């Protein structure tokens, strides 16, 4: 962890009931860095993304983005639990793409992408639409602008969700198993779009995925999680080709057998 890190986790712990999900976890991510989180299910990867998105609170420890403490704010000289206003200010830089896409079914594709720019960023309708058309073009769905989300395939929905996330010009993009609900062919379309995003923008990416080829292509660093801790951290070529830890070796072997 260096002072230059954009995102820091410091001594973060989280339990769900008796189940320890994160165990005194500390790590940092630099601005513009692409980090992939791997590990067996239940090892805490998704919880990390949800905490950064302020959807789950840690039991203890601090999380900062650009030096701002996510869940606490200074009020009259003391640290107090953050209120909605503070949460909104830290959320401004971050957004997330979900495993289940979570497109808004009550809005057509174009409005899914323009809604936040217009009502959160305060863009004009024309501006937001022009930008949305560009993004939908980029994800290859320019012809689906007027469709209902319910009428799109899973892969198409996820590509709209990526366009929707990029439309608010995030500095940090969280990708939570974005292809896990998709058939391999549809997953490939989504991963191609994300490769484009990685190439053409400087957004910081935290990515939970089982798509190892994709992780190797885009990542600067891969973190291997087990039982709420990082047990190995290395550039993808190193971690995938010469894993040090026995648990990592076993995990990678099981993934290869699956595919």
């Amino acid at each position: 962890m260096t002072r230059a890190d954009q995102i820091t986790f410091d001594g973060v712990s989280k339990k769900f009931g008796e189940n320890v999900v994160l165990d005194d976890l500390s790590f940092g991510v630099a601005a513009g860095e692409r980090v992939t989180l791997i590990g067996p299910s239940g090892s805490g990867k998704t919880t990390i993304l949800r905490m950064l998105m302020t959807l789950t609170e840690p039991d203890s420890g601090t999380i900062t983005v650009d030096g701002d403490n996510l869940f606490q704010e200074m009020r009259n000289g003391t640290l107090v639990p953050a209120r909605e206003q503070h949460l909104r200010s830290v959320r401004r830089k971050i957004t997330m793409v979900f495993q289940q896409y979570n497109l808004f079914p009550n809005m057509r594709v174009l409005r899914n992408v323009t809604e936040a720019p217009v009502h959160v960023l305060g863009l004009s309708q024309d501006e937001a639409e022009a930008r949305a058309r560009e993004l939908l073009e980029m994800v290859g769905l320019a012809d689906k602008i007027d469709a209902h989300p319910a009428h799109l395939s899973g892969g198409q929905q996820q590509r709209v969700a990526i366009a929707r996330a990029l439309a608010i010009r995030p500095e940090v993009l969280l990708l939570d198993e974005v292809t896990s609900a998709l058939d391999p062919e549809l997953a490939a379309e989504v991963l191609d779009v994300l490769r484009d995003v990685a190439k053409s923008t400087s957004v910081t990416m935290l990515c939970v995925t089982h798509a190892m080829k994709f992780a190797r292509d885009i990542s600067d660093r891969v973190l291997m999680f087990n039982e709420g801790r990082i047990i190995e951290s290395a550039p993808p070529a190193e971690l995938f080709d010469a894993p040090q830890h026995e648990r990592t070796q076993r995990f990678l072997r099981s993934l290869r057998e699956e595919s």
Partner: protein
Amino acid sequence: MSGGLWLRLLDGLLVTLQLTGYGAVLGLLFAFAAGLARLSRHRVVRGIAFAYTEGFRGLPALVVLFWLVFALPGLGFQLNPLFAGVLALSLNIGAYGAEVVRGAVLSVPAGQIEAATALNFTRWQRMRRVVLPQAVVAMVPPFGNLLIELLKATALVSLVYLQDLTFQGQIVRAATGNTAMTFFGLLVGYGVIALILTILMRLVERRAAASLGRAVRPGLLSGRTS
């Protein structure tokens, strides 16, 4: 039966439709206010809404109506009779409607709210732009059932001398002496109104489902949802 009696029934029909219409509007208002209040972050607001829904789901509509018409004057308030009728009916139906609103809001998947949070919507924007438009679609079928319940309950106002369809039916019965025919005719009349309301609500249901890009059930009359 003379033309004058038919006119009476027509007058009564208008009063019944008025009660149903105003009652539905005011009831909807109570339903949304109480249903959303039950989901409030503030305990006091939740408590008041809980007391309202539990209270009026335990009080007979007829007793509420009698209280507004015959007891309230004892406290020095005299309500316009039509207003008293609308108020009693809508307080009652609103308590049931509040449960519908609450259930529909809770039925919107958590992922929708999380996605709205990830786009940095305010709490109010999440409710107004994401949750409610989806919840309302789920409310339409049970609201359709409640509308029929409201229509049926309007007949109670005839007992406090409001001249609705049932009241005028009693006049017709007294004038013609044909008891069986009159009451049967009344029942058919209410049945036809209910049928029309059901068809209208089915159309609303279709539009609502289409707003989410969903296919709709075929047939305008096939089995009500309960």
